[in-house]
């Protein structure tokens, strides 16, 4: 429940402050989602005393919509601007989560953002992880924010 709240608060703040798109969080996704089609995923590794990943998964259409609003320009394909923007979005969510974990006594180091995109790809969950996936809805569709923390 706490992780869900942190994800929701961090993501909402970024959209309200810098992306200027209205989003609403849904109930956490229980089923395993690891296969993505025509999508973009921004991934940040968490290391230190709290290991895991923070990932944002977006259908191409949603990724282009968010990038367009982020940069204030029209985006018509998944290009370097889109992968960079989604990596930075993941970075900002992860930075916020890191601060919360650090305040709770953890010592977390963040990796440089990575971005995966393509017609179809699979991102597998690490074993023995607490996993929270929060869906967010906006006009152009839905995206997922996933936090995996190793137990």
């Amino acid at each position, binding site marked *: 429940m706490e992780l869900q709240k942190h994800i929701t608060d961090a993501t909402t*703040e*970024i959209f309200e*402050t*810098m992306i200027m798109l209205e989003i609403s969080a849904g109930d956490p996704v229980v089923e395993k989602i690891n296969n993505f089609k025509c999508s973009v995923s921004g991934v940040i590794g968490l290391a230190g005393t709290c290991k895991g990943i923070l990932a944002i998964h977006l259908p191409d259409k949603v990724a282009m919509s968010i*990038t367009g609003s*982020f*940069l*204030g320009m029209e985006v018509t394909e998944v290009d*370097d*601007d889109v992968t*960079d*923007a989604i*990596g*930075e979005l993941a*970075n*900002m969510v*992860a*930075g*916020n989560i*890191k*601060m919360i974990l*650090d*305040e709770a006594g953890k010592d977390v180091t*963040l990796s*440089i*953002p990575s971005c995966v995109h393509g017609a179809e790809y699979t991102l597998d969950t690490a074993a023995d992880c607490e996993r929270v996936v929060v869906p967010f809805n906006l006009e152009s569709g839905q995206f997922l924010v996933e936090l995996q923390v190793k137990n």
Partner: protein
Amino acid sequence: MGKRVLIIDDSSTMRKIVSRSLRQAGLDFDEILEAADGQEALDLLKTEKVDLILSDINMPNMDGMEFLRQKREIDAIKDIPVVMITTEGGADIIGEAKELGAAGSVKKPFKPETISDVLGALI
């Protein structure tokens, strides 16, 4: 020569957004220069003069902390104020940046007004 600012961030998205925020905040820079990491910034500062530097912390190649460490050893650039713009807004990280000479910090996500408030006192 008018006022010039250098933005250091590995994300091209963030460099664009910081540039836009400076304009939206009404900060009057005549030229905005960009570098993708600390080393690229140090190389650029060998030939370019700037009045202010805005730098990310978490970057590949040379991060923002190492940039601060090396910059303060170079007489020609050691007095240029640096404001850190970072997702890592924890007190320990901001404290370390200040010890290394950072003049201020802005946590991402930010609004243009926040940039204006922090930079207003420095330019």
